[in-house]
């Protein structure tokens, strides 16, 4: 069966520091991969999605970037965190025209 791993579960970082969140999927090949952000009191916002290695689409302009160095690995990064980057970050995968499956999320607090 397929599983998705996302880490770390929680992270506290100072403003201006770098960020790297990692997500890996097991049990499937060539999945579509997604990063969503959930800010406090708000819904989920799609940040990035990828349909293949090295193929990244950005949905909103921001301080973050994403990379897909391997088929089942998706990384969310920032060179310098802002206070507004605080939130709950969720990685997800899907196959074409099938529902999303989410990881357990990373709670990021920028201080």
């Amino acid at each position, binding site marked *: 069966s397929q599983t998705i791993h996302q880490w770390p579960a929680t992270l506290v970082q100072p403003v201006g520091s770098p960020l790297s969140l990692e997500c890996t999927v097991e049990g499937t090949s060539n999945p579509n991969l997604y990063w*969503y952000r959930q800010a406090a009191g*708000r819904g*989920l916002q799609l940040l990035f999605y990828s349909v293949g290695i090295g193929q990244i689409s950005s949905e909103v302009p921001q301080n973050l970037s994403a990379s897909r160095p391997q088929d089942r690995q998706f990384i969310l990064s920032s060179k310098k965190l802002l206070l507004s980057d605080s939130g709950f970050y*969720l990685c997800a995968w899907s*196959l074409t025209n099938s*529902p*999303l499956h*989410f990881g357990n*999320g990373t709670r990021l607090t920028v201080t």
Partner: protein
Amino acid sequence: AQSVTQLDSQVPVFEEAPVELRCNYSSSVSVYLFWYVQYPNQGLQLLLKYLSGSTLVKGINGFEAEFNKSQTSFHLRKPSVHISDTAEYFCAVAPRNQGGKLIFGQGTELSVKP
């Protein structure tokens, strides 16, 4: 473009009472429809989905939803809720030609009281 509106941000209800969480959407193309549940500090879990066929969709944990194309709605219902149903519920749509790019509503916080 697509958008999703969940009409209630919070729904308090007593245990064993029925509940309906409302969701309306707008889209210029055909869409798939989903309901997800999120328990505190966890990721989202798929409750049910409408892809095609019968407009009444049954999901996990006793939930069901009905797709109403004319009213562009996909309301979630449960005839008798439990304390364990307390969570946040998200309605989402995805264009049929981009099945994985979900657009989410703002969420409805369901609070079940004893």
